[in-house]
């Protein structure tokens, strides 16, 4: 009986304390969900972007000495005290890095059509670097209003599948080569 009361009490406190998600959180969920997962290090840069910090105003919290990065402790607070209690993310230490991926609720909040799954260990190092490259490209193209747009592997596969399904019901439609473009020369990161 005593055990039941304690459990009930905890539930009430927990329900009362669920943080509300703000625009910054939802933008971050979109980014994480599109990439499948993000490491804590990736999030330091993502959430430290000036426009992300502007969305929070005075709540933005501490930064590191490195410009435009949030501190490790700030990221831990966001994950453990905001996102996880709201049921938006799962997180864990995997192969020496803290990883975050969206729950079903998180994916719904970000309006993404993907399934929630723990990222495979075998691909995590690769994913960490893919995220770094996306962050770099977005930063260099102006992250608040980027002149470039990233379509992640998750979207790429999703879109391909959608067109294949559509082609079955409408055989005359050919899959558009949405990725065709005039070859560019080089990445200008100057």
């Amino acid at each position: 009986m005593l055990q039941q009361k304690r459990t009930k009490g905890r539930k009430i406190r927990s329900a009362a304390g669920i943080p509300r998600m703000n625009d910054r959180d939802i933008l971050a969920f979109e980014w994480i969900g599109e990439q499948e997962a993000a490491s804590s290090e990736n999030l330091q840069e993502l959430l430290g972007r000036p426009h992300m910090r502007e969305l929070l105003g005075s709540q933005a919290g501490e930064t590191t000495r490195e410009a435009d990065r949030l501190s490790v402790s700030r990221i831990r607070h966001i994950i453990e005290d905001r996102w996880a209690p709201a049921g938006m993310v799962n997180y864990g230490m995997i192969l020496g890095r803290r990883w975050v991926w969206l729950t079903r609720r998180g994916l719904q909040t970000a309006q993404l059509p993907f399934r929630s799954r723990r990222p495979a260990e075998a691909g995590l190092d690769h994913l960490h670097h893919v995220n770094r490259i996306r962050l770099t490209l977005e930063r260099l193209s102006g992250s608040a209003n980027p002149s470039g747009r990233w379509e992640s592997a998750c979207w790429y596969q999703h879109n391909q599948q959608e067109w294949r399904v559509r082609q079955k019901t409408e055989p005359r439609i050919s899959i558009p080569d949405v990725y065709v473009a005039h070859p560019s020369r080089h990445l200008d990161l100057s």
Partner: protein
Amino acid sequence: MWHTPAGIWTFREEGALVDSSVIVEVCAKRPWAFDSMHGELARCKSSVWYFVEMDPKQEVFSVLKHLIEKLDDQDKSRFSFYDLAEPGRLVYDFE
């Protein structure tokens, strides 16, 4: 997921929208895996930016370069290599 680009980066260049397939390689590619990726890339004509681990001991860059050198000249010219540790540094291109 393994044999599709890590992402497609679409940007404006001289007023036109341009796509680039972005690939990240952290370990040496086996020939069959490269063939599979190349098949995926053959679906479009966009340029391909490889961000590659440059540690010579890991042979990521040398193996990929060797595989791409076997392609015809036009196909080859789509590929550019950048240093994964320093993404703005162009390491090699086939033009």
